C-alpha cells in the first residue's frame, strides 16, 4: 500500500462520495481536486459548477482561486452571479455542494463568520459567501474540514449556514428548505454521516490507523458511533497517481 497524506485521504474519500452524481457545486482547493478525481473515477458524467459562475470547465492548470481565468477559457457556459444564485442554486439545479467550516456542531450547523462574539470577535472569519444559501438549496451538502476540537464544538459561536438546526425531525422542511442539508463530513481522520431522522452527526468510518477514541478526543460532544463502523478504504494506487501526476502535480493541496 502506498503512503499517502491526510489531505490525499480527504480528497479520495470526498471523490468516492460523488459516485453517480451529476451536478456538483464546487470551490477550489480540496473539493476541486476531489470533484476532478471523481470525474475520472466514480462519476464520469459529473458536471462541475464553479461558484464564480462557470460550467463545464476544462482548466489547463490547477486553479489558484474560484475565479481563476483558466476555469473560464474553454468552459461551456459562464453566467452572472445573479443567474447563478437565482436560477442555478435557488432554482434547484445543484445536486451536491462542498463547503468548509471553521466550526461545526453535532447537527451540522456551520460557522464561518466569527470566533467569539459578533461585535467583539476574537477572530473575524470570512463570513458566508454563498455558503448560507448553498446549505439551504443544494440537494446534499458535503462538508470538508480537518478534525479538531476547535472545529467540532458543542455550540458554534455563530450560525452562518443551517445544518439540521436543533435536531427536531422535519425542522428544515418546516422552514421551506429544499435541500436535505449536511449528508457527509469528510475529515483527515474520519468520515461522518447524519441520522436521517434527527440529523445528528454519526461517526461512520475511521481512516486506517485511527481509533474511535482519537476521533472522540477531537469532538466536543459525546459522539454517536455507527453500529457498523467502517475503516475507510485507503487511496488506491490509481487514485494517488491521478492526484499526484494529473490533478495536483505540484502538490499544492495533496501533500499536507
Amino acid at each position: 500500500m502506498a503512503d499517502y497524506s491526510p489531505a490525499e485521504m480527504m480528497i479520495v474519500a470526498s471523490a468516492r462520495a460523488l459516485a453517480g452524481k451529476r451536478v456538483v457545486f464546487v470551490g477550489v482547493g480540496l473539493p476541486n481536486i476531489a470533484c476532478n478525481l471523481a470525474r475520472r473515477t466514480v462519476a464520469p458524467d459529473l458536471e462541475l459548477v464553479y461558484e464564480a459562475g462557470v460550467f463545464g470547465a476544462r482548466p489547463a492548470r490547477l486553479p489558484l482561486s474560484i475565479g481563476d481565468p483558466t476555469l473560464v477559457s474553454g468552459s461551456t457556459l459562464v453566467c452572472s452571479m445573479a443567474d447563478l444564485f437565482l436560477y442555478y442554486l435557488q432554482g434547484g439545479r445543484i445536486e451536491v455542494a462542498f463547503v468548509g467550516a471553521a466550526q461545526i456542531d453535532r447537527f451540522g450547523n456551520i460557522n464561518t463568520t466569527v470566533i467569539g462574539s459578533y461585535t467583539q470577535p476574537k477572530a473575524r472569519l470570512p463570513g458566508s459567501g454563498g455558503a448560507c444559501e448553498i446549505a439551504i438549496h443544494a440537494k446534499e451538502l458535503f462538508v470538508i474540514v480537518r478534525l479538531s476540537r476547535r472545529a467540532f464544538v458543542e455550540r458554534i459561536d455563530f450560525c452562518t449556514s443551517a445544518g439540521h438546526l436543533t435536531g427536531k425531525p422535519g425542522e428544515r422542511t418546516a422552514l421551506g428548505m429544499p435541500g436535505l442539508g449536511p449528508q457527509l463530513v469528510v475529515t483527515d481522520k474520519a468520515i461522518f454521516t447524519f441520522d436521517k431522522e434527527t440529523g445528528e452527526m454519526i461517526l461512520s468510518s475511521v481512516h486506517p490507523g485511527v481509533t474511535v477514541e482519537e476521533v472522540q478526543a477531537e469532538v466536543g460532544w459525546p459522539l454517536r458511533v455507527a453500529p457498523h463502523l467502517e475503516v475507510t478504504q485507503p487511496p488506491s494506487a490509481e487514485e494517488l497517481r491521478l492526484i499526484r501526476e494529473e490533478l495536483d502535480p505540484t502538490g499544492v493541496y495533496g501533500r499536507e
Partner: protein
Amino acid sequence: MKLMTLREAIATYVHDGDTIAIEGFTAFICFAAGHEIIRQRRRDLTLCRMTPDLIYDQMIAAGCARKLVFSYLGNPGVGSLHCVRRAVEKGVPRPLELEEYSHFGMVARYVAGAARLPFFPLRSYLGTDQPKVNPCIRFLQSPYGDDLVAVVPPLNPDVTIIHAQRADLQGNTQIWGLLGVQKEAAFAAKRVIVVVEEIVDEAVIRSDPNRTILPGMMVDAVVHQPYGAHPSYVQGYYDRDNQFYLAWDRLSRDPALTQAWLEEWVYGVKGWEEYLTKLEAQEPGIWQRLAPGEAFSRPVNYGVYG
C-alpha cells in the same frame, strides 16, 4: 441520447393537458414545434407566451388549447390574431380561457418560476383594471416602508420549447440577437426542448462560453431542424417571411380558409422537412429571398491560461 427528431421530442415530452411555453420575442419562434403539436393532436394545453403570435393563433385554431397565458395579442406589425379573437369572442372552435398580464408581469412570472420564488415583486398594475380581472395579480407592502408593490406568482411550464442558432449534442445552447425571455422560460420549466439551426461541435460552444444561455444539463431534447422558425426569423440565418404574416392576416379571418390551410400545411405533411419541400416548391428561391448578408462579430480573446 438527447438528440432526437421533433416528432420524438413532442411525443415524449408534450402531453395532453400540459402547460407549455414556446418562447421567443418576435424572433426564434419555433413554428416547427407548434405544427408538430398540432399534428400530434394534443388537446387541453395551457399555452404561455408573452406574444402569442401566429404560432399560437394556429394552435388555437387547431383546437389544441383550453387556455392562453399572455401579455400581448397581435400579429406583429400587421394587426390582430383572428383565430384567438374568434375563440375569445365566439368560442370557435372552442372557448379559450385567458389569463392576462403585462409584458413585465409575464417576465416576472418566468423569473419567479426559474428562481423557485413564491412570488416576484414589480412596480406595475397600480391604478389599472388589470388586477380586477386577474386575481393572480396581488399587492404587497414593502417591509421597509410604505411602498406598495404588485406581485405575480411563479409560472412553471411543464415544457418550454425554444429555438436557437446552435447547440452541441449535450444541449449547451447559444443564441445571439433578441434574447427575449427564453432563458427564464427554460429555467422555469420541468422539461426543456431546444430546436436548433445547427448542431455544432462542443469546441464551438467552448470557444465563447459567455454566449451560452442554457447549459446542457437542463436540456431534455436537442432537435436539429433548420428553418424551424419559419415564417419568423433566426438572426443571421434567415429573415422573417413577412409575406406569410400578411397572408395569414387575410386567410385567418375566415375559419374555413384557416382549416384548409392547416389541412394543407400541417396535417397534410409528415413533418417539417415536407413543409419545407412544399414551401420551396411554392416559391423556388425563398431562402435566397430571406437570406441576410454577412455581418460577423469581431472575435474576442479568452486567453489560454496554463
